[in-house]
C-alpha cells in the first residue's frame, strides 16, 4: 500500500504546498522548525483538517479530493495518531484506553505486554510517567490495527533517556509493521535516527528529500553548507535552502 498526498492550504504566515508519498513498511520523517506546517499535514492525513486544494490517496482508496468534493471522515480512515501532548482519556485506565477502540478486545493483554505497560493496566493516565503515557498512546493507536501510523512529535516532552528508549522501541515496531509511518519532529538527529526518508520542511514547503540509507555513516546531521546551493543540489529557491540551513544549524 502506498500513500500519496498533494495538498495546498493558505496558512496565516505562508502557503502550505507539499507533495510526497510513503510506501508501506517505511518510516517517513517530516522535520523542520516549529511552525513549518508539519502538524497541519498529519492532521490532514488523519482527516482533522482540510486543505484548500489537494488529494490524498491510500492504495486504491481516495481519502480526499477537493476537485471532486470528496472527503473521507477520520472515523473511516483507520489511522493511528499519536499526538504531541498526551491525549489519553483521563477517565479510563491504561487498559481501558488501549481497549477503547481495539479491533479485537482479546488482543489487549498481549498489546499491553508488548509495550511493557501490563503492570500499569489498572492505573489512570495521571498516575503514570510521561514515557509510559506515550507508550500507552502508541499501544492505543496500534490496537485499532491502523493502516497508517501518524506520530506528531510524540517524544518531545520526554527526558533524554526515556526519549532514546522510545526511539529504540519505535525502530523495533517499524520492523514489525508493514504500514506507512509518518513521523513529525523538529529534532534532526531523531529524524535521521528513525527515518527511512527524511523530508526537511521550511515555511510550508519540502525543501529536499534525504534517503537515510544513502547518507554516509558518521556524517554530521547537518550537511555542510554548500557554497552555491543552487549548483550543488539543483534547488532553484536559494532563499528556502538558506532558511533550512539556518534553521538546522540553529536547532543544532
Amino acid at each position, binding site marked *: 500500500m502506498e500513500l500519496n498526498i498533494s495538498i495546498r492550504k493558505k496558512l496565516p504566515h505562508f502557503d502550505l504546498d507539499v507533495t510526497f508519498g510513503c510506501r508501506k513498511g517505511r518510516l517517513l520523517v517530516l522535520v523542520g522548525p516549529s511552525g513549518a506546517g508539519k502538524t497541519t499535514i498529519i492532521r490532514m492525513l*488523519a*482527516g*482533522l483538517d482540510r486543505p484548500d486544494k489537494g488529494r490524498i490517496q491510500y492504495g486504491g482508496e481516495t481519502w480526499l479530493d477537493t476537485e471532486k468534493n470528496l472527503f473521507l*471522515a*477520520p*472515523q473511516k*480512515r*483507520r*489511522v*493511528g*495518531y499519536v*499526538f504531541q*501532548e498526551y*491525549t489519553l*482519556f*483521563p*477517565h479510563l485506565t491504561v487498559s481501558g484506553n488501549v481497549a*477503547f*477502540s481495539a479491533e479485537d478486545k482479546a488482543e489487549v493483554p498481549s498489546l499491553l505486554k508488548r509495550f511493557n505497560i501490563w503492570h500499569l493496566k489498572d492505573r*489512570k493516565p495521571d498516575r503514570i510517567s510521561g514515557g509510559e503515557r506515550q507508550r500507552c498512546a502508541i499501544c*492505543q493507536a496500534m490496537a*485499532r490495527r491502523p493502516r497508517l501510523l501518524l506520530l506528531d512529535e510524540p517524544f518531545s516532552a520526554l527526558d533524554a533517556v526515556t526519549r532514546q528508549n522510545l526511539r529504540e522501541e519505535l525502530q523495533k515496531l517499524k520492523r514489525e509493521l508493514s504500514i506507512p509511518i509518518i513521523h513529525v519532529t523538529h529534532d534532526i538527529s531523531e529524524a535521521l535516527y528513525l527515518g527511512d526518508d527524511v523530508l526537511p520542511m521550511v515555511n510550508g514547503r519540502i525543501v529536499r528529500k534525504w534517503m537515510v540509507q544513502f547518507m554516509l555513516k558518521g556524517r554530521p546531521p547537518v550537511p555542510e553548507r554548500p557554497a552555491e546551493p543552487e549548483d550543488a543540489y539543483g534547488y532553484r529557491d536559494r532563499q528556502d535552502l538558506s532558511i533550512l540551513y539556518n534553521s538546522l544549524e540553529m536547532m543544532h
Partner: protein
Amino acid sequence: MDPAPLYLSLKLAFVTTVVLVILAAPLTYLLVYVRFAGKSFFDALLNLPMVLPPTVLGFYLLLVMTPRGGIGRFWQAVTGSPLVFTFAGIVVASLVYSLPFAIQPMKAAFEKIDRRLLESAYVLGLSPLAAFFRVIIPNAINGLAASAVLVFIHTLGEFGVILMVGGSIPGETRVASIAIYEAVEALRYEDAAMMCLILVPISYLFLLLINRLTQRQIYGT
C-alpha cells in the same frame, strides 16, 4: 404539620433534576461544539429565565400553558387533561425556570475538556454521538453533578413561577415554599418553622452527597 407539600417539593425537584440533566446535556453540546447561525441569540434565550423576574416568566408560561395556548392545547390533545394547575404543569414550568442552572455548570465542564481528546476519539473511530457518551459525559461528570445540585436546590426553593402556573392545590401543586408562605399568612408560625427546619438539612445533605460524588470523580478515590 402536613407532610404533603414537602413530599411534593422533593418529588418536583427530583423529576425536574432528572429530566433537566438529560435535556440540558445535548443542548449544552450544541452551544459548545456546534457552529450555527444565531448561536448567541439561542444561548441568550436559554439563559433568559435566569434574569427574568419569576412572575414575568410565570405569566408568559401561564399564557402558553392554558388550553388556548400552544403548549397547553398540545398537551390537552395528547393527554385529554389541562396542563395548568397540575403537577405536570409545574414540572414544565420548573424545567423552563431551572434550565439555565442546568446549562451553566455543564457548559463550563464541557469547555474544560481538551478538544484533542475529541479529535483522538474521532481518529479512533468514534462518531460524534459515541464521543458524546464515551468521552464528553464521563469527563464532565462533575459538571453534571453540579448541574443536578443547582437544579434540585433551585427547584426546591421555587415560588413565583409555581404560584403563577400551578396555584396552590393541595397534593397537586402546593409545594413546600407555597405551604410555608400560606402558613405564615395564616399565622401558623409553628408549621412554617417546622417545614423550614426540615428543608434546610435536606438541602444541605444533598449538597454534601453531590460534593462527595464530585470529589470521587476528580480524585478517583
